[in-house]
Structures are given as C-alpha cells and as structure tokens.
C-alpha cells in the first residue's frame, strides 16, 4: 500500500525545482516494483558448488571429491574447438560446469606435458601458479554451452510436420516411421491432405542413371540428395562417408562459403593447392609483429583463445607488436606496453586498397627480402636459411597473342626440349628454375638463338605493376587510412626479418575481397616468413584419424562409390565444362554470361548451394538434409521471399529433413526433424585450426549420457539415422563389412562407437603409440562406464591406448616440438604463388574474361565485374554494414543459453560519433537501417573506435525461430521465449547482385564467398 503519492514524493526531494533532465529519473522505474521480494540469502547464493578436488597448498597433494566426475571434451560454442573439462555430478549425471583442458594447446599456455598423470592435472584447478600447472580456460561462450544440453526447447523426439511447411505444427513420430518414410517415400503427408508423392531416399539413390539425360555432365540421379553438413565438428566425416561414398551424391556442403571462404580460397591460390585446401596463421607464440585485418584477436577469429592469449602475452611482454586494421575497434587491441600496437580504422570493403598500398610501399622502398625472393627452389632457399620459396622470379608470358599467354614460361616456349619453368640470370639469360636463383624484376622480350621471341615479365614485376595502379595517396583516399600510417605499417611489417605475419578471417567476406585477401597473404612472401619461427604456420596438423591409419582405414570400404558430376553450388567446375556452355556453343550463341556464376576455385560453397536450390540451376535437389546447419539465418541475403517460397513448396523440393537440437530457422521449414545429440553427448575427433604449431587431435566422447532416446542403432542422433537408413537400404560401408584394418580383416559398423573408437585407435597408434592408461585414470574418469558396452569394438591392446587418449581429451604434441632451429617443424612443402597460373587461366563465367593472376585492387563489383558504386551510389547509400562477433554470442547458436541472453539480450547498432552528430542522432535512439534488400530497426550506440560511414552489427541476435517464436507439437505449445529474438538479425540485410536477374545475393567476384560485409545501407531515425 502506498503511504504517499509518487508526485508528492518527487516534489519533496532536494532535486525538486531543477531541470527535468537532472537526476537519475528514478520515478520512471517506480511503477515497476511495489512489493519487495522476501529477503532470503539462499535465493542468490553463488559459487556454492562443491569443489571437484582439494589441493594441499604445501605438498601439492590432490584429494578428489568422490561425488564429482571430471571428463575431457571439446567445446563447440564457437567451433574453435577448445579443449574443455566437464564437471559432472555423479549422483544425477548432470553437467555442473565446464573448465579448460590443461593438456590442450588452445586452452592452456603452456599446456601440460602429455604424459602428465590425470590426477596431477587437477593442479590446474588451483589459482596457485607456483604449482607449475597452467590453468585451462574456456571463454564465456564455452562456459555457457552446457545450458544447451538442458534447453527446455531441445528437440528430443523425431518430429513430422502436421501442417503446411513452416506452419509451426508438428507431431512426434517413432524412429521407425521416420526412417521408413524418408527412405521409402510415398504419399507420406496424405494425413494432412497433401496428396503429392514424395520420392524417398531409396528411389533417389541411383548412381548410374543421369539425373538429366540431356545434361549428363550433371552426374547421376543420386546427386539429387543435397546435404548441408555445417562446420567440421569432428563428426563431419561420418556424414561425408554416407553422402559421398555410400549414397553416392556429390552434394555434401560444409560451411566455408558462408564463414570465411574468401580467405580460404585465396590461400588455396597462394599455396597452389585446391585438394587439401591448406591455409595459414601467424605463429602468435613467437612472432614479433602481426598485422591482422578484419578480425579482433581478443574475441573473434580462430582459434580465438590461442590468438587472444598468445598475442596478449606477446604485447605485454614487449615481444610482439600488432596492428589491427578493421572498421571496428574490437577486443584484443592493447597498447599496454607495445606502444606501436594499435588499431587503424578502415572503410569497409576497401581492404584490398590498403594491402596493395603496403605492397607498393614495400617494393618502392625495397624493404622486401630480395635474398629470399630470388630463391627459385626449395633447396636454394634452405641453403640461405629460409623454409619456403616463391615463384616471384618466375617468368610469365605477357603476350596476348602467345598460345600460352598468362602462363609461366616453360623451356618448350623457348624451343628447348624440357618444360621446366624458366627464370632469368642476372645477365637476363633464361634458365630453368632448377638453377636455384632468378632475377627479380624484368619486363621485356626474350629472343632465343633460334629467333623465338616471347614477351615476358617476372611475377614480381607484374605485382609491382599492379601495385602501382594507384598512387599511395589514391589508395589512402579509397581506404581511409592516412599515407603516413600506411608507410608506418609497411616499415613495421618489414622490420622484423622473418618473424612477422598477417592474419584475417571473416572480415574478408565482402564483394571483391578475394584479391585483398590474396595480397595480404602475399605480403608474407615478400619477407620470407612462411614456415619460419615467428612467421606463418600451416599448423602442426592432425594425427592420423579419419585417414588410412596405423590400425584401421575408415576412408574406404567394399562397394564404395565415387561421386560423379557437378555440384549444385557451381564450385570446382569451370563454366566451360558445363552443359549450359556446351549447349549455347552448339547453338552458336555467346556462352557468356552463365545463368548464375560458376566458381571453379572455391569449395564448400554452402551459400551458393542454397541459391542454386532456389534458382533450380544447374539443377534442384529432390531431398535435402540440414544437419546442424541453419543457412536461412547464416547466409547473407538468403532470407528473402524467393527462398521461403521455394523451401515451403514440396513440389519444388519434395523432401526436407533437419537434424538438430533446436527448432532453427531452417529446421522450421522442414518435413521431418531428427533429434541430434549435443556435443557433450557425442563422439568426435575435431580437426584443428591453424596457429597451433604442433601436431594434435582432440577427442570428444559422450561425457554424459545422451538425453535422446535409444534406438537399435544407438542413441538417436545423425549417426543412428544414417546407420538405420543404410541398414534399410543395404548400402555399402555399414553393417558387417564396413571398416578394414591394416591386417586385412574387415570389421562391422552397427553403432557410432564402432566407427569413432577405430578413428581414435588410429590417433593413439600414429607414430610412436601413446602409453597405456593407468587403473587410476580409468577410475578418475570412470571410463568403464562409457566404454564397457562397446568393448568388442577394439582389441584389448587398443583399448588401453584409446582410453589414454580419451582421459586427456585427445593427443597433443608439446610446444617444445614446434621448431627445428628457427624453422617450423611442420612446414608447407610447396612453392608459394605470388603469381597463380591457375587463377590467371580461369575465366569469369559472366564475362568470359580471365581473372588477374596476382593481387591487385579491385573495387567492389557485381558478378559481371560492373562497379557496385554505379548502381548503388555512395550518395544514396552512404553507410556500409559490417558484422561483428559478440563476446557473448557466436555463430548462429548460443541464444539457447539464458546466461548469455541475460548478459546481453540485444545487439546495438554501432555508429561513429561524427556520423551521429551529422545526422542528429544519439545513443539510445531507435533507428531503421535500410539496405537495397531489407530493413531492420534497432537501438543506436554512438561510439568511437568505428570508421566513418560504418554501421557495426553483432551477429547471432534477432532470431525469429530457435525457440523465440512458438510452435505446436501434438497441439501443445512450445517455444515463445522472446529473449531469444532480441536485437537485429544481421544476415537478412544482405544485398542482391544487380547484374543478375534471378535471386542472387551478392558474393565475392572470384570465388563466390558470401559478401557479408560492406553491405550498402542508409539510416533513418524512427
């Protein structure tokens, strides 16, 4: 009951009579609470968990808490794959919390020696560093992931839609019904009045008959199954084995094309390898200077923890200087000691201009490593102390009339008998690259004694020519970074010999970003830092796991199929090899442009695959599986009416299945949902990110019993579904004859453990086998509880070693093995491509013109090379959107963590204070962002540390599904947690490529990576 009125109360304060804006405005919040909650300390008791162990501070003796279990796993909160140790209540079997695994190189610095007993590793729990054991850590995202296991909206039963697609009506079905209906098809939706016949997986799986007899290049009918498999979480190979090798479809997609594909494609170009798709990171542990672009090393990029920790240590110790070039000042830029370290704000989408300015300056001032660049073979480079070599001195044919125009000059081009690539002596005599030495700069005509003349230039000369395309002042004008800053960075980068490197990631997902990425990578070639300590590392790689290993070959099996044809994503195939090109040519038509762009130099183009599904070009799948992947939310520009219309129409794509833990945006439009295991309930051997310079393979195992129901094929999950489908269809690679061992025996695969345990046996036995697990370690981890049911999957000898690996969360080589003198132990063996002959001889499918074979500044363009500025002018669209990774969110997930939504429910729209002043806007204003495709409203945050003309928006907010909106399961309402919908969803704000008539979100010009950043926009106050 109120004793006095609020008005009287306010008037009686010492604040009465002052301007209305003075004071805290407490009166506005009075109405919210009248009766106080009952005082009870227990309601906010915090930190009340029992400790997992106690440590005697004097002796270091560890005493374990018998009620608590600690097990090692791998975190997938952001897919960096940090090692974690999970605290489990033995009585309930529930996860209590998670820590970092001190054995794991991403999670601890330095990480524990691998042979440290597990009990000793408990010392890592102590904050007492004098015990000599580093803490293993997880970030805030990792700590919160346990909530996903117990998410009230987690999907735990197979569901079948009980209304039209996207109606939000579902009913639970049995696992048997799920498998039968998806395999056999038929009128499976007759019960809701849909009479159409769904072609099941059995009918689709035809590896002989062309899916289109008039276009046999497309491959067999089996390709009509498309599988979106998400990021590599350590189980990816299980899905690939089924789709590619057993079912026989070529259409398996990861997440690269949406995530950081442009950088990956540029690395393939630089390293000349499109098979293994290698890439590199700086050796943060030893580098003296790192230039990072488009990533905040303290909160984003992969592997985030390792980068953050090693760069922070380096800067604090005075060993490392860093320059972060990014439209937004994010976490990880510190000036605490390294005064030269800092942030340079860049105009979004102009990274290539900054990079080419650096190249120009380095070449102009001759601060490149000429000794290194003149080495034309690996042996010559080694003789001079380097660990790699480039083709910078190689000669390129520059005469457009020459039949090998744009190719590297071979001996045969000069009338010689050999076809070895050619370089020049200092006297400008052409010789084979095998001489080991080449002149760096030359452009002119070579004439042989036989009278053969060829116009050539060295790769470096061509690079210089391209870098000089603009003046430094013009580059500065384009990217918004002052000339003196560019010169300063160029000087810094070249001041540390080979102990410097560059890093970038998703920030380069922008139109025309490929060449900027390529240029940033080539900078390392100019100083010779590749494979050097403190330079650039391709990582130590993994122990043999999913490869033909020392115990088993999990990659091949009797009856294995080799997928054939063309992927729907238009990747890996030149347009000139497609049926459209063939048919247009046969009709005498100009074959260019293609209906949609083709990207022969890309891989894992999930964003392009989605576009193709909508367009039905080059063909449309009949069945689609979304496995832990949510392209509607994650692919920029994908959430549009055209996409929704196709995905909702069973006559377009008759069968859509999702396997997930929650009702994601994409899942909500499917026909069937398979409940998957959470990563704490699943097996896996995740692939590792670069920047770890030693060898390691982590292991994930069900540290808690899955909440999904049991089936004859194990706990319900993607693996159980695949095993059941394979059994029903009698597909090769499963059942009795599935996995050969090295002795020629073949083993069965009837449950997921039969596969993953053999993968881990390979890990344990690779090279010198790991020791046997001790009885104490088996007891501490309670390994028998998990492994006993599967004891027939491995031999006794294998068991003891696999258990040793599991007890430590993987197999990890120690840091002290990273270097051999000043070289990295694990080096990329190939030649570095300052000039890429492959790229230079690839044509753009829309214009028919060749791509440039080396880095240059290409302004933002549409797929046909036309300037975006000409259609979407600066005047009309003055702002550029850039996405950010929030500290408390990641990827499309984690909104199912109340801890994280509690910390930050919405994402602000960041704007530079000068822009805000000009527009009369203030922090807290509600504004509308308008892009050529969409609009969205949000709250403005005016700040420093953001480039002019930039709007920063954090990804992973604004979900319209994922439990945020309600749906019905058997008439019962689920979901509706509005906290999950807070803020703006970034990706729907993408831009349509105006050069293409069909629905086609803007993508990178060369390789088709999704153009997430530098999206043109305007702002309107609401």
């Amino acid at each position, binding site marked *: 009951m109120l004793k006095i009125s609020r008005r009287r109360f306010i008037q009686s*304060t010492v604040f009465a009579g002052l301007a209305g804006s003075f004071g*805290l405005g407490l009166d506005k919040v009075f109405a919210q609470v009248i009766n106080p909650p009952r005082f009870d300390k227990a309601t*906010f008791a915090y930190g009340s968990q029992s400790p997992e162990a106690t440590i005697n501070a004097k002796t270091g003796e560890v005493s374990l808490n018998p009620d608590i279990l600690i097990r090692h796993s791998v975190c997938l909160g952001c897919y960096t794959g940090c090692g974690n140790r999970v605290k489990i209540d033995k009585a309930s079997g529930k996860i209590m919390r998670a820590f970092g695994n001190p054995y794991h190189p991403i999670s601890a610095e330095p990480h524990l020696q691998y042979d440290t007993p597990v009990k000793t590793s408990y010392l890592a729990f102590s904050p007492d560093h004098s015990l000599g054991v580093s803490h293993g850590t997880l970030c805030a995202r990792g700590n919160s992931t346990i909530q996903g296991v117990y998410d009230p909206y987690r999907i735990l039963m197979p569901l079948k839609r009980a209304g039209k697609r996207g109606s939000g009506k579902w009913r639970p079905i049995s696992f048997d019904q799920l498998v039968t209906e998806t395999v056999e098809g038929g009128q499976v939706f007759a019960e809701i009045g849909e009479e159409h016949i769904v072609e099941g997986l059995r009918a689709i799986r035809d590896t002989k008959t062309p899916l289109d007899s008039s276009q046999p290049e497309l491959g067999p009918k089996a390709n009509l199954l498309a599988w979106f498999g998400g990021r590599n979480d350590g189980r990816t190979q299980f899905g690939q084995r089924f789709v590619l090798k057993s079912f026989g479809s070529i259409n398996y997609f990861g997440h690269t094309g949406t995530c950081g594909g442009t950088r990956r494609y540029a690395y393939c170009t630089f390293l000349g390898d499109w098979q293994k798709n290698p890439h590199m990171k700086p050796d943060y542990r030893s580098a003296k200077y790192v230039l990072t672009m488009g990533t905040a090393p303290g909160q984003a990029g992969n592997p985030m923890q390792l980068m953050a920790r090693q760069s922070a240590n380096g800067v604090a110790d005075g060993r490392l200087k860093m320059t972060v070039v990014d439209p937004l000042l994010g976490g990880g830029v510190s000036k605490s000691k390294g005064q030269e370290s800092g942030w340079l704000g860049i105009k979004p989408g102009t990274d290539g201009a900054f990079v080419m300015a650096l190249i120009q300056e380095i070449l102009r001032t001759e601060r490149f490593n000429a000794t290194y660049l003149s080495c034309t073979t690996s042996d010559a480079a080694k003789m001079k102390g380097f660990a790699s070599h480039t083709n910078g001195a190689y000669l390129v044919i520059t005469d457009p009339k020459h039949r090998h125009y744009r190719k590297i000059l071979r001996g045969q081009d000069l009338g010689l008998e050999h076809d070895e690539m050619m370089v020049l002596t200092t006297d400008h005599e052409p010789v084979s690259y095998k001489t080991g030495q080449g002149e760096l700069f030359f452009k002119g005509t070579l004439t042989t004694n036989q009278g053969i003349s060829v116009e050539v230039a060295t790769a470096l000369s061509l690079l210089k020519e391209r870098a000089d395309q603009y003046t430094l002042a013009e580059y500065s004008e384009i990217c918004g970074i002052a000339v003196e800053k560019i010169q300063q960075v160029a000087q810094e980068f070249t001041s540390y010999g080979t102990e410097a490197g560059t890093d970038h990631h998703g920030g380069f997902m922008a139109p025309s970003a490929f060449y900027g990425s390529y240029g940033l990578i080539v900078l390392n070639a100019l100083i010779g830092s590749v494979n050097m300590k403190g330079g650039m590392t391709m990582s130590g790689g993994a122990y043999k796991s999913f490869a033909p290993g020392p115990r088993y070959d999990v990659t091949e099996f009797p009856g294995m199929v080799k997928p054939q044809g063309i992927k729907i994503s238009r990747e890996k195939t030149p347009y000139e090899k497609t049926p459209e090109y063939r048919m247009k040519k046969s009709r005498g038509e100009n074959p260019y442009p293609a209906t949609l762009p083709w990207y022969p130099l890309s891989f894992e183009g999930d964003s392009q695959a989605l576009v193709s599904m909508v367009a039905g070009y080059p063909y449309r799948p009949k069945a689609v599986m979304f496995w832990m992947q949510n392209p509607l939310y994650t692919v920029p520009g994908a959430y549009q009416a055209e996409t929704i219309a196709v995905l909702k129409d069973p006559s377009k794509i008759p069968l859509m299945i999702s396997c997930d833990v929650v009702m994601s945006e994409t899942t909500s439009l499917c026909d069937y949902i398979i409940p998957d295991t959470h990563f704490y309930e699943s097996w896996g051997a995740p692939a590792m990110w670069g920047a770890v310079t030693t060898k390691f393979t982590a292991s994930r195992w069900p540290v808690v019993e899955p909440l999904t129901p049991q089936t004859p094929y194990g706990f319900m999950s993607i693996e159980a579904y695949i095993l059941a489908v394979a059994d029903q269809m009698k597909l090769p690679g499963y059942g009795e004859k599935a996995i050969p061992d090295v002795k020629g025996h073949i083993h069965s695969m009837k449950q997921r453990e039969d596969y993953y345990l053999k993968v881990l046996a390979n890990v344990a036995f690779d090279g010198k086998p790991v020791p046997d697990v001790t009885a104490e370690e088996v007891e501490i981890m309670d390994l028998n509880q998990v492994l006993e049911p599967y004891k027939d999957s491995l031999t006794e000898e294998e068991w003891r070693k696999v258990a040793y690996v599991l007890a430590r969360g993987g197999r990890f080589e120690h840091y002290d093995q990273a270097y051999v003198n000043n070289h990295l132990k694990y080096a990329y063996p190939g030649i570095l491509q300052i000039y890429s002959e492959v790229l230079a001889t690839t044509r753009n499918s829309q214009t028919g013109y060749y791509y440039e074979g080396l880095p240059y500044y290409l302004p933002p363009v549409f797929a046909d090379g036309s300037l975006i500025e000409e259609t979407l002018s600066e005047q009309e669209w003055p702002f550029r959107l850039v996405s950010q990774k929030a500290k408390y969110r990641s990827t499309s997930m984690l909104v199912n963590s109340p801890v994280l939504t509690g910390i930050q429910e919405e994402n602000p729209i960041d704007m530079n204070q000068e822009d805000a002043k000009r527009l009369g806007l203030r922090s807290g204003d509600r504004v509308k962002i308008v892009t050529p495709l969409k609009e969205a409203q949000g709250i403005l945050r005016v700040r420093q540390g953001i480039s002019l003309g930039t709007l920063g928006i954090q990804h992973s907010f604004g979900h319209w599904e994922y439990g945020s909106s309600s749906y019905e399961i058997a008439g019962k309402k689920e979901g509706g947690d509005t906290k999950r919908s807070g803020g703006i969803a970034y990706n729907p704000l993408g831009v349509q490529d105006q050069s293409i008539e069909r629905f086609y979100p803007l993508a990178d010009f060369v390789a088709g990576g999704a153009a997430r950043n530098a999206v043109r926009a305007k702002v309107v106050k609401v």
Partner: protein
Amino acid sequence: MNQQARADWYQFLSLGFLREPSADFLAQYKQVLHKLLKCCSPISGLYDSLVKLDECTVTAQDYYDMFFVPQSGAYVPLFESAVVNGQLTKTGFQFGLLQDRQGAEVNKIYQLFRFNPHELQIYSPLKFNPFSDHLGFELAFMSFLAYQEQLLDDGANLELRKWQSYFIKEHLGPFSSQLQTALTGKPPFYEALIQLVEQFMKVERGRFYE
C-alpha cells in the same frame, strides 16, 4: 536522517559517477550539494567532505580518462568485483577481475527487484555497460530502495530494510572502503566524491549495525 534524505543522498552520490560533468550538470549538481550542506551538521564528517567536494573542479576529460580510457594512466574500473578483489602492491593498486562473484550477485539482486540501471538517465555509454556492480549503479539502487521505503507500508519495509542492510554489508560497504585505497592520487573531484561516499557509508553502517 529520514528516508527522503537518504534517498536524496544516494541519488546525489550516484549522479556524480553516472553523468558526464558538463558545465550545466555541474551547476545543478552544486545546487543540490548546497541544499544537502544546509541539512548537515557542521561538525559531521559528511559536512567536511561536502565542503571539500564543493571546492573541487572537474572536466569531462577527467571523467573519460578516469572511467572509460584504460590507456589514460588515470583509469579506474569502478566496479565492485575489480575493486574488492584487487590489492595494493608495490607498484600501485592492482585491480581484480570484472564480473566476479560480487558482480553476479549484485546482478541477481537487481533482477529480483526488476531494477534496470540502464533505464536511468545516465551518460549514454554506460547504458551499454554490461556489468551491474558499477559504483554509480549500486548507489542508484540504494536510492531506489530508500525511495521505495517512503512509499510502502511497514510490513513491506521490513523486508526492504533487510535487503538494504545486506547490500551495504556485503557490497557497497566493502566496495567503498577498498576504493579509498585504490583511488589515492586521482582527479581531486572524484577523490573527494569517493571520500564522501565512504563518509556516507559510515553513517549508513551506523544506521543498520550500531
């Protein structure tokens, strides 16, 4: 001191940390200061501290340097977790971690009362500050509770007093004490303001515990 005065005092102290010290703001702030001064006994510690504060000047740059710019050399993370978990070392005060146990608990208490400091009229960048245990927020929360006490009947007030007592004992009190150690040699206005907070905490401790 009645509930009204307590609430005013808390609000006054809170404003000093939550608002940018513009000329307009300072003029009005000093007006309130003078009103409070009139109500104070000249022989109390509060009086002396108020006079000292009245004599100090402050610039917006001081405010930014002290509370928002870690590289400034004057920076102080004005968060309970960082302060109470910090310690004085030979090289100066070493702050502890942000959002430790104290921050989490403060946040939980705010949630129980549905008190959202971001809804207050405060310096706009603070609206995006995710940490609940900012000194200004905690003082504002106490002001909020003290005002509430004016409005509610005795039964409800009994619970409210328990909460206030607990909050002072476990949070604001230790926070304020430790701040004296952490802030020596900082801009005089804020040094004086923090001394005033500690003086006021002494009064409040006496109210609830002596």
